Structure formats: structure tokens, C-alpha cells
């Protein structure tokens, strides 16, 4: 436990923390210039990414049994921090005068980083909370609408319930094993002891709740719809990635046990079907994305069925593809008269004729989310289903594929609205082009998308 290791191994966390502190100081000093705050936040995130790139191959455990880093955690952190940058950029227009937004977002990222390095439930729990608590509030910031407070409340109550279930599970696990180490939990996954299985199931349920798997999904559509667009993007990408990657850390590379197979196959399958079906009727883009994210959470947990070694790669690749597409779509939505109008699917009608670039970007995102080749979403889904099949769950793979076909309908519905439906005139009138920062966020995502679409092999080799 040398000081040097603590300094180096926790560099990303330190940099984020420095960013948080600096932002708070700026806030106290009374500087509320949005661009200044934004650049501090972006620099902090970028510095953390740079530090991790620099530390490639480094591994250390500055707090034995509590916190360790290695290529895997660094990679996960770098990927998710990189995804947060476009969120920050597109948030500029909405949160120009909400100073606390940026430190909250960085705190959430801090919590995420902690989870990725957690070796014990103590660290994991703290990370989960540090990631979640700021998001409860981010949902209601930029109060454009009264509903956002309601959304925050729902998210908070069910998030708190998830925390409690998680803790109950940990507690039972602790009672059974006398330790809080994650490695012991991984071995408990295949236990048949009723106490251990209860503990495992409760922890898993908590993760399902946080990741919005049916029937624990109910908060997600409400919270996503209530939040403003950048925050929805953040929840749908970074927070979801955090939860799934943390769950992955629990599972390690151990093969799935009979105990977890059912939970990891049936509930995600139900999520895929439920999410894809319910998304069909939505009139709000965010709500639609919420249901789509419920389905995508299903695919992500499906990946856990695959054999251990390929799991991390499949999940991270899926997350990259999924998050890039969501961010691309969110960044490209032209800003409307207000947040609700902007979000309404009706306002997308005839978008292609008004702003072809935005329509093409959103269209591409939809096609990719639907999993149509050659877009990244296809490779990602393919990777997962291939692993699931290779692990011998052909039936589940086929059912999942069939379920994913249901989703094509509503993704294409958006495309149909944009390209083939005449505009509803009033919506079009109030529309203005997105700010240049939102555009650059879209451009970043576009570059990422093209990279992943054209060189998926190369991206996979990095994972």
C-alpha cells in the first residue's frame, strides 16, 4: 500500500475529483460562465482518459482486497469516460446556467470508476451510490417541466429500493461467507446453498432494478421521459454501462451456474420482448428510447450467458455500439420550441426535408439500434448471440433474435416519420438548428460510429 501506487493507480479518480473540486471552487467564487465550467469538466474527463491511455498495461492493487486496477478496469473506465464527453458537449445548450450540473456529472463518473476497480462490496456499494445519487438530481435540473421532479422522485425511491435490496443481498452473503470480497461472491454464484442463492438473487435483482430489466423496469420510462435530453442520454448510456459492467465484475469469467441461467435468460428475454413491444406506441422520443433501453439491457444481460472469457469483449463492444448510437441520435435532435416539443416524435415528421443531416444521423442510429448490418449494432448483437449459441443456449438465442425483430418496427417508424411523412407545420416552425457544441458531439459520435462500423475487427482487438 505505497503512496505512489495510490497516486498512480487512482489517477483517473484523482483527476475527476480535482475537476469536481475545481468546479465547486469556481461555483463558490461565483463564476457561472457555462463555457468555463464545461471546459473544466471536459478537460477533467479527457485528462483521466489520457492518464489511462498512458497507463496501459499497468496493474496494481493499492488497497488490497478493496481497490485494484488492471487493463480491464482501465479499458472500461476509458470507454465510458469517452462516452461521457459527448454528453457533456450536448449538455451545454440545456445547462448553460446550471452550474452544479457539471460537478454532479463528474461525481457520477467518479462513482462509476470506483465500481470498475472494486474488489469488495464496500467499494462497489460506495461506487454505486456515488454514481446514482447525483443522477437523481440531474434528472430534475434544468427544470423545463414539472414532470422532471416527479421523474426524479420515482428514480430516487426505486433507486433507493434497489440499494436496500442490494444491501440485503450483501448482508446475507456476508452472513454466509464472513467476507465481503467480490471473489468470494463469484464463487457463491454456483452455490446451491439456499442462503447463498438468496443473497445472489437479491444482488442480481438489485442490478436488474438499476439496469431496468422487466419487471423491475417501471421507473425507467418515467425517469427518462422526465429528464432533459442530455440527462436521458447520460442515463441511457453511462449509467446503464456502469450497472452492467459492475454486474460483469461480479460475475468475472466464471461460467454461468444453473442458478443464474434462468434469471439471466428469462428476465432479459422478457425485457427484450416487453421493451420492443411497448416502444411501438410511444409518442415521446425519450420514452421510446427508454423502452428500447429496457430491451437493450436485456441483450446486455444475455451476454452473461456466453462463456466467461468472451463476455467482457461482447459486453463492452455492445455498450460502445449501443451508447454511440443513442448519443448520436440525441445529439442530432434539432432543438425545438421547448423540451417537450423537441422530444415529441411528431416533430420528427418530415425532418429529412428540413435538416437532412440530422435526419440521416438519427436514421443511422435507429438502423444500428435495430441491429441491421452493417451498422455496429448488428456486429454487437451478433457477437452476443454467437457467444450465447456457442455456450449451448441455442433456444434462448433464437428466442432473443425473434424478440429483437419486434424492435425493428419502432426504429423504422422513426425513420418513416423523418423521411416519408409530411411535416406537422407548427412543429417545424419553432425548430432551430442545434448549437455547434451539440453538433460537434454528434460529429464525435459519428466518427466513433464509422470507426466501429468499418473496422469492428480492429475495435474488438483492442478490447
Amino acid at each position, binding site marked *: 500500500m505505497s503512496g505512489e501506487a495510490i497516486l498512480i493507480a487512482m489517477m483517473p479518480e484523482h483527476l475527476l475529483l480535482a475537476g469536481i473540486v475545481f468546479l465547486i471552487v469556481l461555483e463558490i467564487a461565483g463564476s457561472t460562465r457555462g463555457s468555463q465550467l464545461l471546459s473544466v469538466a471536459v478537460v477533467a474527463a479527457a485528462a483521466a482518459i489520457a492518464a489511462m491511455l498512458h497507463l496501459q498495461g499497468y496493474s496494481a492493487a493499492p488497497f488490497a482486497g478493496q481497490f485494484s486496477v488492471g487493463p480491464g478496469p482501465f479499458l472500461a473506465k476509458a470507454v465510458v469516460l469517452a462516452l461521457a464527453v459527448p454528453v457533456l458537449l450536448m449538455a451545454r445548450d440545456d445547462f448553460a446556467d446550471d452550474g452544479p450540473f457539471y460537478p454532479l456529472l463528474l461525481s457520477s463518473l467518479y462513482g462509476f470508476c470506483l465500481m470498475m476497480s472494486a474488489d469488495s462490496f464496500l467499494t462497489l456499494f460506495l461506487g454505486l451510490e456515488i454514481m446514482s*445519487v447525483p443522477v437523481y438530481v440531474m434528472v430534475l435540473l434544468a427544470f423545463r417541466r414539472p414532470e422532471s*421532479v416527479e421523474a426524479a422522485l420515482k428514480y430516487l425511491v426505486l433507486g433507493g*429500493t434497489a440499494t436496500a435490496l442490494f444491501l440485503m443481498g450483501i*448482508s446475507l452473503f*456476508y452472513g454466509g461467507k464472513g467476507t465481503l470480497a467480490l471473489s468470494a461472491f463469484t464463487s457463491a454464484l454456483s452455490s446451491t446453498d439456499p442462503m447463498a442463492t438468496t443473497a445472489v438473487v437479491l444482488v442480481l435483482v438489485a442490478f436488474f432494478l438499476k439496469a431496468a430489466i422487466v419487471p423491475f423496469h417501471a421507473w425507467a420510462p418515467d425517469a427518462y421521459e422526465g429528464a432533459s435530453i442530455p440527462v436521458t442520454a447520460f442515463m441511457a448510456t453511462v449509467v446503464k454501462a456502469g450497472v452492467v459492467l459492475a454486474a460483469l465484475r461480479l460475475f468475472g469469467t466464471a461460467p454461468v451456474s444453473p442458478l443464474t441461467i434462468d434469471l439471466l435468460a428469462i428476465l432479459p428475454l422478457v425485457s427484450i420482448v416487453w421493451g420492443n413491444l411497448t416502444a411501438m406506441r410511444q409518442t415521446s422520443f425519450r420514452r421510446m428510447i427508454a423502452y428500447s433501453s429496457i430491451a437493450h439491457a436485456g441483450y446486455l444481460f444475455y451476454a452473461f450467458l456466453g462463456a466467461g472469457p468472451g463476455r467482457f469483449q461482447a459486453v463492452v463492444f455492445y455498450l460502445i455500439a449501443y451508447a454511440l448510437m443513442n448519443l448520436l441520435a440525441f445529439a442530432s435532435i434539432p432543438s425545438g420550441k421547448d423540451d417537450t416539443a423537441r422530444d415529441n416524435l411528431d416533430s420528427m415528421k418530415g425532418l429529412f426535408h428540413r435538416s437532412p443531416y440530422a435526419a440521416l444521423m438519427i436514421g443511422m442510429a435507429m438502423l444500428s439500434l435495430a441491429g441491421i448490418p452493417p451498422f455496429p449494432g448488428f456486429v454487437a448483437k451478433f457477437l452476443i448471440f454467437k457467444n450465447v449459441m456457442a455456450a449451448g443456449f441455442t433456444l434462448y438465442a433464437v428466442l432473443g433474435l425473434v424478440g429483437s425483430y419486434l424492435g425493428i418496427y419502432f426504429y423504422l417508424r422513426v425513420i418513416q416519420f423523418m423521411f416519408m411523412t409530411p411535416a406537422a407545420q407548427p412543429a417545424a416552425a419553432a425548430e432551430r438548428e442545434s448549437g455547434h457544441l451539440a453538433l460537434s458531439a454528434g460529429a464525435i459520435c459519428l466518427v466513433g460510429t464509422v470507426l466501429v462500423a468499418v473496422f469492428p475487427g480492429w475495435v474488438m482487438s483492442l478490447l
Partner: protein
Amino acid sequence: MDKLQFLVFVSVALFALGLLGVIVRRNLLVMLMCMELMLNGVNLSLVSFAQQTGTASGAVLVFLIFVVAAAEIAVAIPIVLLLVRRKRTLETDAYSDLKG
């Protein structure tokens, strides 16, 4: 029923009571307090197990839960204040505009 079993039973029962409170009580503040009750239930079993196994980590987790509970309440109460300011009611079902 030995002491440990009894304590775990109490712990689980408190947890369930808390969850029940979230499900059945219409008052927002009561709901929040019930969430606290859930955490208290978890704490009891953690302390019992820590005592049983003689390891410190359970107790440390209890300490962390204190802090987290405080943080959650610190965030939750302003949110409730905001809600009440808008609709002048603490009834949970009044806040169900988002649906579908």
C-alpha cells in the same frame, strides 16, 4: 430460536416492513422514512453477522450505510419540497403524470 436467528428474523422483518411501507403508504414523507427502515433492517443483520463472524468489514459497511442514508435523505427531502411546492400535496399518486 437462538439469538442470531432471532436478530436476522427481526432484520428481515424490518426490511419487509420498510418495503411494505413504500408500497402501501400514500404519504411521501412516510415513504421516505420506510426506506430508512429498510436500511435499518439491513444494518441489524450486518451487525449481527459481524458479531457472529468477528470480522470488521460488516461493521464498516454499516458505517457506510449510515452515510449513504444521510446522503439519500439530503437529496430526497429537497425533491419532496419541490414536489409539494407545485402540487400542495404529499400524496404519492398525485405524482403520476408520467405514464404509458
